[in-house]
């Protein structure tokens, strides 16, 4: 055990108050965090740190496990509260100043030892703050990943147009991961709603390349295997041209220019007609 640990242990109260005032000037975010909470966190971290550094000066050692665990919680709560990773790191880094002050007061007589001890203490605190930043960014990445998954779910709604008629309006670029979700949710919806017809509408798909077309064909074939008819609608003129230029064969697939056309066809095939109730002589609308 080197000297700085002893100094920290001896001056715990002084360091804590110095640390708190340091934070109050440099990194304080009163809008995000109250005084009592920050005091609690600082007290707890200093206690854990002092305890751990009595037995080891290696952050990776078992002695620091509880300190690291605590920093993880701190990082998570701060990320949730809206702190930046830098501000979270400064929470640990602002401990340096009071620790160095305490060391300076304790080792006034021996400058060379003072430098060694400052270096050792600084090193340890740097590692801890780096750990905090890593944790903070890790949590943010987890959030991003979760949101990506949620977006994937949100972007593939299967809507029921009529008894036995489903529509799947696709919006945004289709990639392999997304088409997989599209395929699965459509097929599951077909089973759940017992639908005979599914309409895939690609009005919101900006580009169709061979890969996207192949994914669509696969989805339509899978739906057919399950016993449902699948129409493709919302093909814009530009996309029709692209499809022909790319040599994609859609002859086995029923395509329509507009969703309404596909819906009319679906109604017709399931033996339904739309009748106008206004006007003198209501006639069945020709579908």
């Amino acid at each position, binding site marked *: 055990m080197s000297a700085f640990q002893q100094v920290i242990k001896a001056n715990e109260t002084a360091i804590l108050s110095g640390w708190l005032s340091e934070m109050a000037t440099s990194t304080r975010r009163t809008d995000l965090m109250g005084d009592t909470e920050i005091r609690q966190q600082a007290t707890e971290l200093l206690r854990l740190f002092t305890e751990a550094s009595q037995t080891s000066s290696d952050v990776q050692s078992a002695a620091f496990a509880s300190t690291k665990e605590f920093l993880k919680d701190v990082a998570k709560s701060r990320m949730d509260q809206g702190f930046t990773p830098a501000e979270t790191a400064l929470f640990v880094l602002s401990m340096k100043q009071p620790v160095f002050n305490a060391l300076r007061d304790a080792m006034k007589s021996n400058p060379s030892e003072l430098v060694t001890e400052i270096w050792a203490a600084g090193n340890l605190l740097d590692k801890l703050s780096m750990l905090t930043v890593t944790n903070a960014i890790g949590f943010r990445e987890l959030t991003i990943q979760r949101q990506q998954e949620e977006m994937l779910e949100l972007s593939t709604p299967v809507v029921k147009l009529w008894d036995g008629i489903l529509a799947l309006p696709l919006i945004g670029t289709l990639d392999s991961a997304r088409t997989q979700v599209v*395929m*699965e949710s459509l*097929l*599951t919806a*077909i*089973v759940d709603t*017992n*639908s*005979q*017809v599914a309409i895939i509408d690609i009005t919101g798909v900006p580009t169709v390349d061979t890969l996207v077309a192949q994914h669509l064909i*696969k989805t339509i*074939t*899978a*739906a*057919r*295997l*399950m*016993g*449902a*008819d699948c129409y493709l609608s919302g093909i814009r003129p530009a996309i029709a041209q692209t499809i022909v230029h790319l040599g994609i064969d859609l002859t*086995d697939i*029923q395509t329509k220019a507009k969703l309404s056309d596909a819906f009319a066809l679906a109604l017709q*095939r*399931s033996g339904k007609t739309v009748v106008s109730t206004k006007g003198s002589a209501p006639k069945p609308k020709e579908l």
Partner: protein
Amino acid sequence: MDRIPILKVGDCLLVTIQVDMHDELAMSLQEDLTSQIARYGSRGVLIDISSLEIVDSFIGRMLANIAAMSRVLDAQTVLTGMQPAVAITLVELGMALPGIKTALNVERGMQLLQEYMDEGPEPEETDGSEA
């Protein structure tokens, strides 16, 4: 189970696959089914695979073969109740089973077979996409 039971319902044969198919079982089903079609002069075959959760290319090919053989013996095959996972697997394997009619459940499948038998042998130029 040694063999998959084949039930005769009127002019049709009804096969429900309720166990995981292994190759031998598939082969014996193929043999049994063709001999039963010939024996009863059946016009339709309905295969329900709603309990089938795993398929491989062999089972896929076997299903296509059964449909083709039935066609030769003048019987229409309808495959019903395919699970989404099975459909995805077959498509990924590149087996679209073009000659086979499909339906969501046995009820619809029976309806389809009935329509087919009422119409009599239909000309082959239809694109096979009718509901």
